[in-house]
């Protein structure tokens, strides 16, 4: 059961078009919301005239922030708890100032989406343009136009470690490397856009919100706060989701708007994001610049490591904004390496662009690309093989868990043998020979490595001051022996209906088809933390296995009491229908609700100043081989192998599918995709003709091998949903750099698109 390639329970409904996604929830009287969004990057809003729009056919109402406030709207905030952050709150709709193209100003409710969009055309907004500020480094310059003049700067948040130790280690190192690494702006791009629908429950007067959201319980909290209702009066249902990848992790203005407008109009209302809104006015990601300084010795051992980060937040009117990922970046700069003292300096900068926030990987790809580029470059400068330099820098094999100076509790296996397994599998030495042969023929083949240690199942408490590290599940054995599981995570395609059924079935000792799993409904469980941060197997799986094991133990007790070796079904029937025959001390029923935590995290500094944000870690070793066409700049993948330790594997088919999909996303991130703006802050990538995720013809299969070292947490899981999207950009950048090295090209950017590579090649000639 656990460990089997069980085919997915979800598939029959998805394959036949019976999935129920956000926009598949038509109800009688449903109205639709369209938004008037700013067409310019930065402006004062002088006036808004909705007179014409109100007269447009089908229009139910036209709403500004003032209308929403009259209807009870409260301010929204980023809900960050760190010291030193600038004060900032915002309305559900913008009022006097807009600060990116796409910022919502007016909401139209109409009886059809087309009518709502027609009426948006009739809203007159008078803008007084202000200077756009697109480049975060320019935004740091003295005299730069300010997004929030009351701050006196565009810096929203800064954090720095004590610099002394790393600086001293670097100063006395035999060699020092200093480079700038650019991580370009991309986005998660779930194929189903974001959206929400809400209605007033006539029985209770409360709200029922259907939202394509990865964290329905936390969305309930935020909606309740913004609308001004107790949490008990808001039910959030996250239905089938057409992907999420972090883009649906935030709690957005639009979700709160939908809730407010359902109350204000008394009608069921839906907002379903269109693709232009998704590309320009939802969530962007990455967008960091690193200046890395590294001291190392003649053997390639790093002695001190320092990264100064400028993170572009866009206009940070978003729950946790780009600060969340940036904090993760500074927490994993050294990954699975012993780099000696590590220091950082982080400046999070507001610009007049779309808010930056979550995308699968969440700050880890940025740290990892930088560290892998540094190690490869050290190897090159010392004339060593990058394999050798990695071996020299891996965390020692003992003790375990490895307790990093920061407090991180790294419960991973030995990295060296894991890496060697990868090299054997990919035939590293053979590829080096083939690479030499190719070079002799004037072809440019490169080999790239990623040796990733990934923190998983993180706590949000450190940044949010709430939302700790735990997860809920409720498992019941029903009188006929069938089993229900409710869990507080939220599948967006990760097969939770199948894998959690496997976990429960395994613990209970029943066939998988007996178990029905449900998620995404705040009515089913008091609270849950949702799905993000590679946490679901660790936290949801841990909760399901804990609840199921408790039930199994109770059933074993009852079986002994019954005598005669009863079947599972006989025990279930006995407990529910013949409860008077149970032992007196035993509670009737077979249901177990648990709130589970591994308990490993330290979200705020303890007495020794240590923190640990991750419940566990996975280790993933990746090698890719590419050939670069130096005339076109095209990068062709020749081989790609991942040896993955995600702890106990629940369903190898699902894990391989996650790795495959994440790898191709990571490939797309660096070879195909880039969110671009012009100098005036106009988005240049507002369609899927301009923002081009990889197609079936652009990729090849990743070969995945499992290397299972169970964690000590319940079930032994480690989590892995983000691993390959962290690994792929680093490995591909390494491979491209390796291929182009003979031409004098160095790669210090994630922009590996054909036109960027052609520019690098031109510059090198």
């Amino acid at each position, binding site marked *: 059961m656990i460990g089997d390639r069980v085919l997915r329970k979800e598939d029959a409904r998805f394959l036949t078009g*019976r*999935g129920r996604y956000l926009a598949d929830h038509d109800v009688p009287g449903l109205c639709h919301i369209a938004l008037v969004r700013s067409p310019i990057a930065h402006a004062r809003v002088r006036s808004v005239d909705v007179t014409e729009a109100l007269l447009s056919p089908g229009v139910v109402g036209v709403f500004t922030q003032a209308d929403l406030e009259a209807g009870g709207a409260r301010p929204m905030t980023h809900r960050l708890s760190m010291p030193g952050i600038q004060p900032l709150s915002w309305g559900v709709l913008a009022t006097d100032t807009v600060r990116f193209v796409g910022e919502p100003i007016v909401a139209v409710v109409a009886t059809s989406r*087309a009518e709502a969009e027609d009426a948006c055309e009739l809203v007159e907004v008078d803008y007084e343009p202000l200077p756009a500020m697109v480049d975060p480094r320019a935004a740091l310059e003295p005299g730069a136009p300010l997004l929030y003049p009351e701050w006196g700067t565009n810096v929203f948040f800064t954090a720095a470690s004590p610099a002394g130790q790393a600086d001293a280690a670097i100063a006395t190192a035999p060699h020092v490397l200093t480079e700038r690494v650019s991580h370009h702006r991309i986005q998660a*791009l779930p194929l189903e856009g974001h959206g929400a629908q809400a209605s007033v429950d006539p029985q209770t007067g409360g709200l029922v919100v259907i939202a394509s959201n990865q964290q329905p319980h936390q969305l309930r909290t935020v909606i309740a706060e913004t609308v001004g209702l107790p949490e008990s009066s808001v039910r959030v249902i996250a239905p089938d989701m*057409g992907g999420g990848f972090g883009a649906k992790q935030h709690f957005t203005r639009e979700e709160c708007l939908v809730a407010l407008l359902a109350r204000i109009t008394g009608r069921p209302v839906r907002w379903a994001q269109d693709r232009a809104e998704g590309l320009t006015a939802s969530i962007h990601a990455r967008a960091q610049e690193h200046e890395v300084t590294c001291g190392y010795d003649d053997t390639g051992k790093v002695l001190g490591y320092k990264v100064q980060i400028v993170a572009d937040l866009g206009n940070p009117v978003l729950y946790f904004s780009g600060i969340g990922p940036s904090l993760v970046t500074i927490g994993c700069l050294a990954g699975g390496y012993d780099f000696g003292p590590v220091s950082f300096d982080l400046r999070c900068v507001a610009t007049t662009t779309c808010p930056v926030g979550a995308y699968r990987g969440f700050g880890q790809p940025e740290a990892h690309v930088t560290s892998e580029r540094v190690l490869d470059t050290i190897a090159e400068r010392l004339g060593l093989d990058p394999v050798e330099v990695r071996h020299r820098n891996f965390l020692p094999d003992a003790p375990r868990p490895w307790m990093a100076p920061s407090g991180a509790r790294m419960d991973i296996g030995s990295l060296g043998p894991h890496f060697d397994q990868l090299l054997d599998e990919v035939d590293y030495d053979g590829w080096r020979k083939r690479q030499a042969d190719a070079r002799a023929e004037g072809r440019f083949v490169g080999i790239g490595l990623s040796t990733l240690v990934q923190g998983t199942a993180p706590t949000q408490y450190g940044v949010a001051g709430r939302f700790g590290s735990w997860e809920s599940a409720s498992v019941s054995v029903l009188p006929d022996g069938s089993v229900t599981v409710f869990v507080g995570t939220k599948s967006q395609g990760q097969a939770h209906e199948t894998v959690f059924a496997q976990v429960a079935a395994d613990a209970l000792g029943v066939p998988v088809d007996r178990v029905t799993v449900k998620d995404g409904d705040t009515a089913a469980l008091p609270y849950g933390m949702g799905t993000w941060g590679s946490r679901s197997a660790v936290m949801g799986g841990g909760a399901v296995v804990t609840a199921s094991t408790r039930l199994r133990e109770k059933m074993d007790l009852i079986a002994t009491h019954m005598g005669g070796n009863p079947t599972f079904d006989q025990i279930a029937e006995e407990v529910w229908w013949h409860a008077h025959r149970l032992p007196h001390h035993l509670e009737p029923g077979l249901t177990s609700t648990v709130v589970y935590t591994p308990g490993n995290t330290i979200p705020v500094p303890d007495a020794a100043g240590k923190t640990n944000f991750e419940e566990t870690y996975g280790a993933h070793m990746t090698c890719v081989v590419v050939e670069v066409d130096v005339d076109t700049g095209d990068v062709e993948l020749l081989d790609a192998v991942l040896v993955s330790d995600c702890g106990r594997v629940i369903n190898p088919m699902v894990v391989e*599918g996650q790795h495959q999909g994440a790898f191709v996303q990571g490939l797309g991130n660096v070879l195909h995709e880039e969110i671009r703006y012009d100098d005036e802050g106009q988005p240049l990538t507002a369609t899927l003709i301009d923002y081009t995720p990889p197609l079936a013809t652009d990729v090849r*299969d990743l070969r995945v091998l499992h290397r299972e070292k169970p964690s000590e947490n319940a079930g032994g899981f480690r989590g892995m949903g983000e691993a390959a999207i962290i690994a792929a950009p680093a490995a591909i950048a390494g491979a491209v750099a390796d291929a182009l090295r003979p031409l004098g090209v160095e790669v210090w950017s994630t922009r590996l698109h054909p036109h960027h590579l052609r520019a690098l090649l031109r510059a090198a000639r």
Partner: protein
Amino acid sequence: MTALIETALSVNGERRILDVEPRTTLLDALRGIGLTGTHAGCEHGACGACTVLLDGETVRSCLVLAGQCGGREVTTIEGLGTPDALHPVMESFRRCHGLQCGFCTPGMVLTAVELLDENPSPTEAEVREALSGNICRCTGYAGIVAAVLDASSSVVSE
């Protein structure tokens, strides 16, 4: 109010009469009669999530006006199989893990059906080429390509 166009067409073998605005896309018209397996992914013809068969050929239903479909035959994913009776191509998708979130899946399956109809034994390169108008953000295409190749050996050409 714009005058509605009465459009009589066949949807999944059933005669339907739709009253649509001139601007109503086939996508919206199909979804409006409850066939929500046809998904709106981009509404500008780039992603393929809204793919349906029109007289047996794949079209992006977001780029076809419903009013132009009078007298024509539309097949949506709902017309191809049911959870209890999956089409052989659907069976292959399930067997080969050719889907995750399921949002691109109807378009992928219909595109695969068209390919296998025209070319019952495609090579991997031909499969990738045929699918290259449909975006999948979850799978990395490996399972989808495997599923179409699997179906090519299991599907009897119709």
